[in-house]
């Protein structure tokens, strides 16, 4: 167990707990965009930065990655911290002017758009938090989408912006996307995502279309359970 102070509050947390977790467990809110309880933290969005003090030295760290230590003093709202968060939000307001989520956080934190930043028109609502990519790789395990190029040209999508043959249409990426950038269109027996159409399978019992065939085949291959045995939706099981 580590004893530390967060925003003046004495806190005890198990060793290895990230500051973010320890703060939330104690009712201290730290804003984040790229953190998710079931996905390894990546420290990409930088909204969760906090200022830590060890002895005389203080520095800014990402609370989703930095772990609690004995004697650590954490300030989650110092002026330096707020300066970083204000910039991150102003940058995202300019990158993703269409994103309601970003606008809401900005309003909540009192951040206005920076008139010197021209608004981007080609980035949609994607903030490159990589939750979708990590879900696809680490949780689903298909690596259908990823991050290509680098710097300001970095984008999320399938390889060559076209080949989504690895995609099983599970929709986990759309589900986890914090800004609603990833579009998934659903008709009764068909689902469209990443430019590809997926045939949906109807439940053998209730007849409701509940999952893409490709996804069931993927699960079948991985688990050894036949597709026929997977053809009943969760509510009928």
């Amino acid at each position, binding site marked *: 167990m580590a004893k530390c102070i967060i925003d003046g509050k004495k806190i005890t947390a198990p060793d290895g707990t990230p500051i973010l977790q320890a703060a939330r467990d104690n009712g201290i809110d730290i804003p984040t965009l790229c953190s998710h309880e079931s996905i390894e933290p990546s420290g990409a969005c930088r909204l969760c930065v906090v200022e830590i003090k060890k002895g005389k030295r203080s520095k800014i760290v990402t609370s989703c990655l930095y772990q609690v230590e004995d004697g650590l003093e954490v300030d989650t709202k110092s002026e330096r911290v707020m300066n970083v968060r204000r910039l991150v939000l102003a940058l995202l307001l300019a990158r993703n002017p269409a994103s309601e989520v970003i606008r809401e956080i900005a309003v909540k934190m009192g951040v206005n758009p920076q008139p*010197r930043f021209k608004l981007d028109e080609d980035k949609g609502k994607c903030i490159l938090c990589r939750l979708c990519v990590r879900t696809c790789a680490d949780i689903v395990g298909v690596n259908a989408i990823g991050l290509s190029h680098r*710097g300001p040209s970095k984008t999320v999508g399938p390889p060559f912006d076209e080949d989504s043959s690895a995609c099983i249409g599970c929709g986990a990426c759309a589900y986890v996307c914090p800004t609603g950038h990833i579009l998934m269109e659903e008709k009764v027996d068909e689902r469209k995502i990443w430019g590809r159409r997926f045939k949906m399978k109807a439940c053998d019992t209730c007849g409701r279309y509940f999952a893409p065939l490709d996804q069931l085949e993927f699960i079948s291959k991985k688990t050894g359970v036949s597709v026929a045995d997977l053809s009943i939706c969760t509510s009928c099981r």
Partner: protein
Amino acid sequence: MSKINTLEDLNKAGKRGLATLIPSGTKIMVGMATSGIASGAQDVYHALDREIRERRLDIILSRTGSMGMDCMEPLVDVLEPGKPRLAYGKITAKKAPTLLEQIAKGTIETIKPFYRMDEEESIILGKSKRYGDGSVPAYLKEIPTIKEIPFYAKQVKIATRNCGLIDPESIDEYIAKGGYSGLYKAITGMKPEAIIKEVIASGLRGRGGGGFPAGIKWKTCREAKGDVKYVICNGDEGDPGAYMDRSVMEGDPHSVIEGMIIGAFAIGSHDGYIYVRNEYPLAVANLGKAIEKAREYGLLGKNIFNSGFDFDIRISKGAGAFVCGESTALMASLEGAAGEPRAKYIHTVEHGLWNRPSNLNNVETWANVPAILTRGGKWFAGIGAQNSTGTKVFSVVGKINNIGLVEVPMGTPLKDIVYDIGGGVPHGRKFKAVQTGGPSGGCIPEKLIDLRVDFDELWKAGSMMGSGGMIVMDDRTCMVDIARYFIEFLESESCGKCIPCREGVRRMRDILEDICAGKGQAGDVELLETMSQAIIDGSLCALGGSAPNPVLSTIRYFRDEYDAHIKEGRCPAGVCKALIKYSVDSETCTGCGMCVKVCPTGAARGEKKQPHVIDEATCTRCGACLESCKFDAINVK
């Protein structure tokens, strides 16, 4: 080739090396590092080779790396028995026959050497060997010795000790200069802990930029949990204007290899990697050959010096990503992935390459290690400054007369480097600043010319050591444009993982571009400062964390130039195209018509032998007339 297992074997190889290093006959050496080849050394070598064969001369022709004085390349050194070694600068293929005739005659009438070396120094052995009996023939007395040449006088060479002196492909010559004796001493006579103690005592700090004490890093890595540990050499020298590591890898690859073997033995590692920048094919080739030779001699591989210690090295080529100079990004790249850094809250000495303890130092750092082992940590600590011991190699480039690589003790005044070694600013222009530390560094203004260059003094001045690039700027260099240049560089080299760096640096570039285009607004400088602080604090790795430095340091020392751009719409240095005008000085213009010929838009016009004019409306400020005018009649304001 038989293996080297004992000190006797090593000495035998050294004797073989000495026989080619200072042979009994005449020897000609051509500096064939990348910069030499780019200036035409290859042609010179071939011409000499052809002439020597055709004339059936008894002359040994050999290749060396670079002595550092790039502005005199192609460099050819001549060593005749019993005479000092002579250095000839700017030799062309055409001059080759003349040079050979001159050697045959025993004169220096037609082509003058620009310095002579009476003895060959070995910093490893701590002694010099005089060529011949040490006497200088009368006709050579007028030639200054290397120590009398301002460029070399204040230099102390440790990391680049052999560059330009030995054939990089000859392991024997390296051994003749004391090479691998540090390794022998370490492996056969010292405990790993004692080696680390020696490196800590030397005060050696990492030469790659951060300046972290190398010995402490080794110690932490040695003590880290894990059976498999890695030793890595960072040769991904990405700072534009810095090429010292390339010079060492090309000119003296064994110094890096020996340093790494010593480090590996001290840390307890059996696998080494050298990550070399993609743009350095000759470095890759020379390192590869050196590794092969070291394996042949048993200095790499199993049971080195019969000690039971095994170690081998692999080379990995980068693929063009500045961010891979960052240790965690470099390790991601070694694993075969995109070079994205990760937060370093868990240090790479504990969890690095493939999550195993990994010790990474750069080329120059490793090259210093053999010298520390042979001469002792105390000796090394006695050179340089208090908290920055030893020497540092700098590439002194840009608007400076003597362009090249120089190695000086830490703490050498900037003034000495710019004026004594560098020979000052050319064309009688005014010295303005030195940019150090690459894109992560800053600009040191003229008023700080007395600054003693070491890790801490540069840091205090708002810059940093970086890998040692020093780009000299004169009054025709616009500091806002320089800030824009570095920010644009970093924007395209950002990996794109974290928001402050990916998006923030891009927005800073937008604003700086506006300022350079005369579209700056009141408050822009203050906005840049606020953004800089947030990017420094908020970025994930050192690339973003130091990206605003060139902007902050130019604002700190050259705020007036920013104001001139924003408030007066003027670029005082005459660089920013939207803010300058080209005109012809009618007094000096002879009407030769050259500007008319080169102008791509027809803006330059005029009658033959009459003063010409430049039409402002069609002029694109491309500078073609300026560089072609032989009479200095083009004005830029």
